[in-house]
């Protein structure tokens, strides 16, 4: 062991000091790789936590949550539950809630960017029994009519007014108390307004109803199996009226809902790591080559193979530790930046809104460090082995040593084989994990094989590119590209990294562009009304805001309005999974051809006689098809007549007629209203009038709504773009690193060229051509392979995850730009490396 330390001290660290720029580069790559992964994890977790705030409770985590199958729970049912539980010490805390939006006079809010708050009503007296004593701030003097308790983070004082939009009304509340943080008690999120239950029920006009019950089981020796018993009792009593979910289930639910989105993020972030790993391998292997002589000397002095190998691995370990440490910092910083982007997206898609801080937990930090260390060790393993096999110095020839190990790296056939495997795997369907959680595992593996295969096969391009180079008779070009005649493993690596990164980027670009094109088409088709009206608080897909019957009547009565169509919606839980039931004006949809059919109904009036249509997400999630029967909670049966394409949400929806909806769900409120105006009416003017008359409503003209829809769509993918850039950046950096290694190894050749009279400038240009060749090979392969990857993402991954059918659209301009960018930057980096190499002194050590 002491020999190993000696080697490390006298050789490795000395090299580090001399070639500190290179070491720094290596560490940066590791840091970037693990940092990006960490950033995405943290941002993910923060988004999930923000979302969970809305599914978790007010007290400590409840043991169970009871929610209604079709909406509210009646207080009569609560009495039943209590009777069924008999003397069991189980606490039942009723909760009612409604999403509201903070209202500011004269400030119109674009969809998706308004903050969503929750107005939560719970029995304060009952809460005392759970908490034991009232938390600070929960005293108040109770004289305030609509008193709410808010988090200290809102910086309000008792008596301050708070105005919110609930449904379509603007309501004035007053702060009755401020709740400060207490040790050991989960803090009140700043987006939650707490009210006493009776007051809340009155305000929400839902007396004697609650939205959920938090069940807390008291633990003690006298009731050993109380938790299970309680769950069982409550379940058995349900009789389809409610469902009981355990704490893990709720966390899982939050996870499920955001799963697809988060999975996409994770996959992307792994790319950076993947590419980074490639590059570390190269760099470390280059290190072995350069220190060959030194190793040879050590061997002659009697140092064993094992000691050499160990020294290298420890060096790699150190690299991993430092890189990983840097990665923690980068990752944390990146997460802070990403978290608001991710949260916004989650908010838009799912309605979670509170932006959480992305905090670093020890577990995550360890994971990130381990990733960096493991990557470093894996990447170093082969070079370390090579190093230990270096012959002693008297047997070292003077030829430049080219790392020839890993014959399989030269096997382009392996690349093609992997790609073929990918094609086969792509034919497999999704893997259903639990009810409605589908994991397109086969497709992800196919994508991975395809990327790996692309990398290996990309080297094939280098030959033809060299041939193309022969067109011009420039010495620097010929010389530069001559290296592609027999590409070294280092060349292969660089091409592979570039090709994979570009393929991934191109694939994502194609997917996004296809989404874009399909969305536009869908918007064209389904948004035909002149005006769209919804509650101003309806910030996202999961908002509960509605428009009341009075307002509807007012809208109908307006002289400029020709037709009014309402969309009613109710969130339900089907087979344990949240989804939606929509109620529409059937004749209206037919008149205006509002649906893009994936499977058109055979009966023209599909909404009659208990008929329904579903969207693709629904069909995919619940494995239903046209012609199937479906039972909705509450015992209502429908027959599915058709499947429509709908990109509005990914929770899925089943649509029935308005009349049936009103009958089954007893609601007179509408979620959205579409207005067709009479000819020659100024839509903007009408919109303005409605908005002025009803401050709690959002009114959008058709044009405006389309713009908003697209804007939201783009926002959803904003994080994706960032990751793509990082991936390509890492690959291009790797190209630079590869070339630097190559040039260092070609020191002898460089001397030769100098002695032949080549100027420093010419050497730089030669290197630039070499880099350009490699970059072009990588980019070309990447773009082409990205085409198939895009297809996979669209027709397999997304179809299996979300169920959407998309049209294929290739963004030629964007892809061209990508290639151009990669090649230009690659060339530039190579020129810089060449310039640096040219400046090297003759026979310079590292």
């Amino acid at each position, binding site marked *: 062991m002491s020999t190993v330390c000696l080697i490390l001290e006298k050789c490795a660290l000395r090299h580090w000091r001399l070639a500190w720029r290179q070491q720094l580069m290596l560490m940066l790559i590791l840091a970037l790789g693990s940092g990006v992964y960490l950033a995405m994890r943290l941002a993910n977790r923060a988004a999930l936590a923000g979302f969970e705030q809305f599914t978790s409770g007010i007290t400590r985590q409840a043991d169970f949550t009871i929610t209604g199958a079709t909406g509210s729970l009646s207080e009569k049912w609560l009495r039943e539950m209590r009777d069924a539980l008999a*003397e069991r*010490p189980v*606490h039942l805390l009723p909760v009612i809630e409604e999403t509201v939006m903070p209202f500011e006079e004269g400030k119109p809010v674009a969809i998706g960017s308004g903050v969503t708050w929750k107005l939560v009503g719970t029995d304060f*007296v009952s809460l*005392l*029994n759970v908490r034991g004593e009232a938390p600070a701030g929960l005293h108040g003097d109770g004289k305030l009519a609509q008193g709410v308790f808010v988090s200290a983070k809102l910086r309000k004082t008792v008596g301050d007014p708070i105005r919110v939009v609930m449904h379509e009304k603007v309501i004035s509340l007053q702060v009755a108390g401020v709740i400060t943080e207490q040790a050991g008690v989960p803090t009140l999120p700043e987006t939650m307004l707490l009210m006493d239950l*009776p007051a809340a029920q009155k305000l929400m006009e839902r007396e004697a109803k609650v939205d959920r019950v938090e069940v807390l089981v008291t633990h003690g*020796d*006298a009731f050993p199996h109380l938790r299970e018993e309680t769950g069982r009792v409550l379940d058995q009593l349900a009789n389809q009226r409610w469902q009981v979910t355990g704490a893990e289930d709720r966390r899982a639910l939050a996870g499920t809902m955001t799963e697809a989105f988060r999975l996409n993020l994770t996959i992307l972030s792994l790319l950076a790591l993947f590419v980074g790993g490639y590059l570390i391998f190269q760099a470390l292997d280059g290190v072995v080559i350069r220190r060959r002589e030194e190793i040879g000397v050590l061997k002659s002095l009697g140092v064993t193979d094992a000691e050499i190998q160990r020294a290298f691995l420890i060096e790699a370990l150190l690299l991993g530790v430092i890189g990983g440490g840097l990665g923690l910092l980068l990752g944390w910083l990146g997460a802070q930046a990403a978290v608001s982007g991710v949260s916004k997206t989650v908010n838009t898609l799912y309605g979670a809104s509170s932006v959480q801080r992305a905090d670093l937990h020890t577990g995550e930090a360890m994971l990130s460090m381990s990733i960096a260390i493991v990557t470093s060790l894996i990447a170093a393993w082969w070079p370390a082995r090579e190093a230990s096999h270096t012959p002693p110095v008297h047997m070292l020839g003077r030829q430049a040593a080219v790392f020839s190990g890993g014959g399989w790296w030269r096997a382009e056939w392996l690349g093609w084989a992997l790609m073929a495997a990918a094609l086969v795997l792509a034919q497999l369907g999704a893997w259903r994990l639990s009810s409605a959680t589908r994991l397109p595992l086969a497709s992800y593996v196919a994508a991975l094989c395809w990327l790996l295969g692309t990398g290996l096969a990309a080297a094939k391009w280098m030959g033809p590119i060299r041939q193309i180079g022969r067109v011009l008779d420039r010495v620097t070009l010929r010389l530069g590209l001559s290296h592609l005649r027999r590409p070294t493993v280092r060349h292969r690596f660089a091409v592979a990294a570039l090709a994979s990164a570009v393929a991934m980027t191109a694939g994502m670009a194609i997917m996004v562009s296809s989404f874009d094109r399909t969305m536009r088409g869908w918007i064209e088709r389904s948004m035909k009304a002149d005006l769209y009206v919804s509650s101003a608080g309806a910030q996202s897909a999961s908002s509960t805001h509605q428009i009341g019957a009075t307002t509807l009547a007012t809208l109908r009565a307006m002289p400029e309005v020709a037709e009014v169509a309402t969309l009613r919606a109710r969130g339900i839980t089907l087979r344990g999974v949240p989804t939606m039931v929509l109620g529409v004006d059937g004749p209206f949809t037919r008149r205006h051809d509002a649906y893009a059919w994936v499977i058109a109904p055979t009966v023209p009036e599909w909404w009659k006689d208990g008929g329904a249509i579903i969207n693709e997400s629904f069909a995919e999630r619940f494995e239903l098809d046209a012609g199937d029967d479906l039972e909705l909670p509450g015992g209502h049966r429908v027959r599915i007549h058709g499947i429509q394409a709908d990109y509005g949400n990914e929770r899925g929806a089943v649509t029935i007629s308005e009349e049936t909806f009103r009958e089954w769900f007893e609601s007179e409120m509408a979620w959205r209203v579409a207005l067709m105006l009479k000819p020659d009416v100024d839509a903007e003017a009408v919109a303005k009038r409605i908005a002025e008359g009803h401050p709690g409503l959002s009114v959008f003209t058709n044009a405006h709504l389309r713009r908003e829809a697209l804007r939201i769509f783009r926002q959803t993918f904003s994080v994706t773009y960032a990751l793509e850039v990082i991936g390509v950046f890492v690959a291009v950096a790797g190209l630079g690193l590869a070339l630097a290694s190559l040039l260092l190894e070609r020191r002898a050749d460089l001397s030769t060229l100098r002695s032949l009279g080549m100027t420093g400038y010419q050497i730089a240009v030669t290197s630039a051509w070499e880099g350009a060749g490699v970059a072009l090979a990588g980019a070309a392969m990447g773009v082409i392979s990205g085409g198939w990857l895009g297809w996979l993402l669209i027709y397999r991954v997304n179809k299996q995850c979300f169920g959407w059918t998309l049209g294929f659209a290739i963004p030629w301009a964007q892809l061209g730009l990508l290639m151009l960018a990669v090649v230009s930057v690659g060339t530039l980096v190579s020129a810089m490396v060449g310039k640096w190499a040219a400046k090297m002194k003759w026979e310079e050590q590292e």
Partner: protein
Amino acid sequence: MKSKSTSQTTKGCLVILLALTGHLLAQTTPDGFAIPQKGHVFEFPRDHGNHEMFRTEWWYLTGHLDGAGGKRFGFQVTFFRQAARHETSGKVSHLHLAHAALLDVASGRFLHEEKLNRAGWDAFSSATTLDVRNANWSLKLDEGSKHISVAATVKAEVVLKLELEAVKPLVVFGEDGVSRKGANESAASHYLTFPRLKAMGSVKVGTQEHRVTGEAWMDHEFSSSQLDEGQAGWDWAAIQLKDGREIMVYRMRRTDGSTDVASTLTWIAKDGTLKKAAFDWKPLATWKSPLSGAVYPNHVRIETEGSVFELRPLAQDQEQGGSITGLPYWEGACDVLNRNGQLVGRAFLELAGYAGDLKQYLRGAQGRKKQD
């Protein structure tokens, strides 16, 4: 003469009217709650139920239980109802408070719990019969068997399930149905009691379940003001003697510690007849609560009609309540010894008003809860 008789009649009517009005006025407190009236006819099972026109009401069950192997317990389960009238809307809302306590005599372990719920689906009392609930605790009269069942828990440590059968008829304390507590007319209550109930059931402590039998005492008292000016609280005892008689002592305590003249001691004969008697109450020892700091004189000597009864607590710390209301009190199982130190019966002793502001609470102040 006719005019003379008319004016006399008119005067007569006026007098009657005045009297009536004055009488009516004397029937409610300033904030509109009923004051117990003499001559009230009690009907059962209706009067086992709640009386919401009165501000405060409780159903108070205490008792001693014996199990196998000499196991001995003292228990208490109480359901309170407290009304409050909203200042602006005038609406009356009710809060239900409940206490459960168990003393394991052998180990001296005293477990207790307090619950508070607003009247609603989770806490209520019937207006027509005895049926009181507070979360998972219940007290019910079975119409058919006339048995009363009680179920209560102390956190998840203790489960108490008993069936009670009155072995002596219900008694109504006070004069003409009204039990006076002070000089003021409003300081009175209707006070009904089952002085001896046979108890049967089970007590589970931790994982151990014990079948138990014993005797219990149940009070049902309702009023709109329990304390008069100058009163700080009360000391109360319910004694069940082995010879089949009971004694109920209600000592109203003035703020200076002296006994208010309104205090009473009532003998209950074997046949259920009541007889009031004078008495002397002397504390023999005190215990200071480490939790509330109150000093409870929980070992007392009562002397009445030539008999001496020493109430010796089975454990010192039998203080309970207050975790939510901030009003702890001492309610403890005691042995009753005669002047010769012989065991002649069992009792429960209650010491109220030694901590917190009892009067304030009973007047319906906010306490620690939020009302709308």
